[in-house]
């Protein structure tokens, strides 16, 4: 049996992978920078926690509601974000993150600095789920999300996002309703972040505003950029590597933000496409080994 410690790390990594994936929809697919993604993670976590502890809804309702509420707030906040681009969008989304964190912190209704406790793992078959079972549950949900992502990526929606990412003005002149497709990306990305928040709250059983601050947004963005912005697997690989690093070495945990910052700078300088981006060293190696096996004498 795998020890509880490893299961905890696995669950954390799947939640981070879900977050990185959701940010990748907004920033990678639709090309809209967001420095406040943890806000939606937090909105999901708080929605789920409040519904569960205050209103008495079961996990199976509170977590989907977390996605719905985060998606709605994402749409509402996405609309002002449509008026700004690039660096101004980065600052606006950052501001949203600070506002959301402050609301959790200063409004007593949300438990203030003490946060919310007493959130439990879900029940099924008349008993509480074990942690390995919970791990399998969120892994299955994550795989379903990835299938959805592939489906959307191959649809006209995915193509419209690509055109907006490439050139917003040209996209508009080609019949793409830029506003509608941007809002759609914000809704989808925020809803999935909210879902991750719901899973996170029920797993930690206790949440505080600090879990959803700007630092958390930077961590999520680092994972996306490190792995390869816009690629399907890059952000997941980024989440796995940057999620495991602090666990294998305590000093890394203490200097986490510093190390992530240095990693970000390094990636921007040497591999702006990320580990799995189309122009990265790894992708080139992979392509070479797949397309020309004979070149290394490996063919029969």
């Amino acid at each position, binding site marked *: 049996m795998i020890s509880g410690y490893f299961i905890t790390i696995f669950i954390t990594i799947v939640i981070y992978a879900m977050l990185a994936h959701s940010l990748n929809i907004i920033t990678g697919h639709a090309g809209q920078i967001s420095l406040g993604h943890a806000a939606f993670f937090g909105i999901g976590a708080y929605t789920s926690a409040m519904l569960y502890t205050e209103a008495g809804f079961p996990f199976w309702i509170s977590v989907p509601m977390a996605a719905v509420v985060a998606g709605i707030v994402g749409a509402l906040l996405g609309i002002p974000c449509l008026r700004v681009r690039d660096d101004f969008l980065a600052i606006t989304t950052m501001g949203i993150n600070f506002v959301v964190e402050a609301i959790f912190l200063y409004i007593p209704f949300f438990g203030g600095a003490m946060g919310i406790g007493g959130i439990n793992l879900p029940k099924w078959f008349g008993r509480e789920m074990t942690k390995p079972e919970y791990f399998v549950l969120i892994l299955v949900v994550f795989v379903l999300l990835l299938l959805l992502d592939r489906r959307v990526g191959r649809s006209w929606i995915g193509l419209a996002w*690509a055109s907006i990412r490439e050139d917003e003005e040209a996209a508009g*002149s080609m019949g793409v309703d830029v506003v509608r497709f941007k809002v759609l990306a914000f809704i989808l990305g925020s809803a999935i972040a909210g879902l991750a928040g719901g899973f996170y709250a029920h797993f930690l059983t206790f949440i505080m505003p600090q879990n959803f601050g700007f630092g958390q947004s930077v961590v999520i963005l680092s994972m996306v950029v490190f792995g390869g912005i816009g690629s399907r697997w890059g952000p997941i690989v980024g989440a796995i590597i940057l999620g495991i690093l602090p666990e294998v070495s305590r000093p890394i945990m203490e200097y986490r933000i510093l190390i992530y910052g240095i990693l970000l700078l390094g990636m921007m300088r040497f591999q702006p496409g990320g580990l799995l981006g189309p122009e990265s060293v790894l992708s080139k190696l992979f392509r070479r080994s797949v397309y020309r096996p004979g070149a290394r004498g490996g063919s029969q």
Partner: protein
Amino acid sequence: MTLLDVRALSKEFDGLRALDRVSFTSGEGEILGIIGPNGAGKTTLFNLISGIYLPSAGEMSFQGKSIHRLKPHQISRLGIGRTFQIVRPFQNLDVETNVLVAYGHRFYPSLWKSAGPFRQPEFLKEVQTLIQRAGLQSYTKHTAKNLPLGFKKRLEIARALALEPRLLLLDEPSAGLRFEESAQLMELIRQVRDQGIGVLLIEHNMQVVMDLCKRIVVLDHGAKIAEGSPKEIRSNPLVIQAYLGKET
């Protein structure tokens, strides 16, 4: 038949009149030349017609429908395609995908339809026809940013044609091209016209304009100073003055 009707169209930027009460009409299967010195307001005019800017005053209608308050995607869906003075293909997408973006104009209005997959054989076939018309069939899978300028310009035309336009706005298609490239492009524009599509052509190369257009509108400092056949334009004193300056 009249396609586009522009009436007293004006645009101000911070008090500066970039376009001053310009009126003209253009018809089906007609290449209307738009010429004028640098800064005359030609590209501003295109940006107004395609909805990138909102006019400060004046009206525009396309096939009898008022368009001066519409957004770019609405205008393009009505059947006005355009190219850009400084080429703007989707640089990191291949030629086929570039054209597919515009081909999708029929799916974007419905969320349900836009959730369908875009790489369908029947769509690819139609897109391939457009690519062929633009003479880019050997470059279908090439990334746009790696194409030479002349091919990028043809790609922009193929992309605009995927909108099934009734009117095409071409902003300096021959600028920066070698003679042969330019000649090929002119041939493509003629073919487009022969299909009954109206063309508005901004062009600095007078040879090209005089060759292609039966009618020309001349802008200077944002105002229309002349309109007529190439012959009339060539001998118009106001036009000569705008281009060469006043004799002293």
